[in-house]
């Protein structure tokens, strides 16, 4: 009986462990750094755009993110699925990182729905996930410029329903910029907390070749 119980424990231990793809497996997918995200063939520079943060101050993307690992995401606070899941998962993982690592990471949320997403609303929404997250807004031209610079499809407003609510189509990927302000890795929707926990410290450690 003891052996039976032990074998059950062993089966469950293997099966219930969070998906933990090995570095070798990641490498086999054409990823030379063993990262879980998609490494870009060509690094992209941080968009040269100035947004407004939730305190109403100007936020120069290039200047403010220099020296930080920056996760940039375009979304909106009325989003029913992708945006809150990405933010919740990143927030949950950042809290588990060593403080010295977490202090070197900035998470930027740029609204794709500036008409409804007031700075106050963005702040309140982001505080649900992590109060260190930076919320940014701007005019639609600035937002579109930033998206274009990262080869992301421009966001599109959907039709309003009877209550006036509408959805906003937007890219579901989080863009990771290394401290040299170059976008190196994309994280599509479906990336999991275990993947973030694996990649975030690595993104700070890797000596990237080429720019």
């Amino acid at each position: 009986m003891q052996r039976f119980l032990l074998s059950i424990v062993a089966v469950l231990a293997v099966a219930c462990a969070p998906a933990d793809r090995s570095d070798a497996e990641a490498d086999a997918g054409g990823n030379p750094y063993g990262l879980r995200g998609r490494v870009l063939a060509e690094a992209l520079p941080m968009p040269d755009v100035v947004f407004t943060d939730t305190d109403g101050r100007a936020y120069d993307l290039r200047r403010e993110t220099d020296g930080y690992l920056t996760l940039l995401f375009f979304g909106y606070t009325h989003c029913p699925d992708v945006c809150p899941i990405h933010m919740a998962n990143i927030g949950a993982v950042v809290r588990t990182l060593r403080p010295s690592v977490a202090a070197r990471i900035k998470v930027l949320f740029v609204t794709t729905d500036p008409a409804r997403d007031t700075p106050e609303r963005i702040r309140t929404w982001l505080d649900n996930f992590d109060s260190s997250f930076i919320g940014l807004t701007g005019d639609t031209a600035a937002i579109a410029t930033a998206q274009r610079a990262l080869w992301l499809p421009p966001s599109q407003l959907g039709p309003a329903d009877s209550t006036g609510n509408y959805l906003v189509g937007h890219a579901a990927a989080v863009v990771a910029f290394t401290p040299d302000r170059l976008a190196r890795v994309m994280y599509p929707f479906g990336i999991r907390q275990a993947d973030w926990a694996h990649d975030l410290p690595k993104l700070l450690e890797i000596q990237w070749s080429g720019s």
Partner: protein
Amino acid sequence: MTWWCAATDLPWTWTWRAYPGVWLFVAAVVGGYAWALIRLQPARLAGDDQPTTRKEIALFVLGALTLWAATDWPVGALAAGYLLSARTLQYLLYVLVAPPLLLLGTPRWLLRRLLRGRVAFRLARVLSRPLVPLLVYNAVLIAVHLPPVVNAVAGSQLLSFGLDLLVIASGLVFWWPALGRLPELRPMGYPGRLGYLLLSVFVPTVPAAFYTYARFPIYELYELAPRVQRIAAVADQQIAGLMMKTLGGLILFGTMSVMFFRWHRQEERQEIPQKEPVA
């Protein structure tokens, strides 16, 4: 039309949704029972058969209502694609609450009628011994909690239906030897039943421990599901772990306490004639 609760990508809302397949399932269970009571009850009962009592009918109906509550909106829908804690509650209702009520609500004469065939009787006898039910119950418990199974079944109504039936069946198999309804199957005595229930407490603590102590969400389905009431995926997982440990333990230990006192009463009843002075 959605017949059975399965995972969708839709955000969760507290707006009621109809699942006609669930109603048909519950109606079939209750209807089959009512039909059996009306049509199959013999005019003269043999042996220790008793006429169906109100208590038995009430227990069976309560069991069917438990199945309904666990399968239909909102528990069924939340369990299918939103909250692991709801799935755990559903699992506990399926295996630890509904089956004993259904079995205790089925009168002995009906059980005997159902087990009239040789194969059915032999199967019931095998299932009256503890080893096979314990293996079946734990194998199903492990299988339905494996992440690949949970993720594979999620979007399919048919597979979700099949998995729900499998879990309910494992619950019936699990409780069969513990309740020992038919003496001709030579069920275990109270000490054996207590030991059997005690053994079954341990395996569920394994997934419960993973749920409670895992750093990150175990199931992709629940991690990437639209959030319900802003409950974080890890918090939901921890609630599920606590439920599995405490609720499951409470039900099993509660049942064991009742059995222990029944055993005690039985022993007392057997001792009373010996204490009387011999004339």
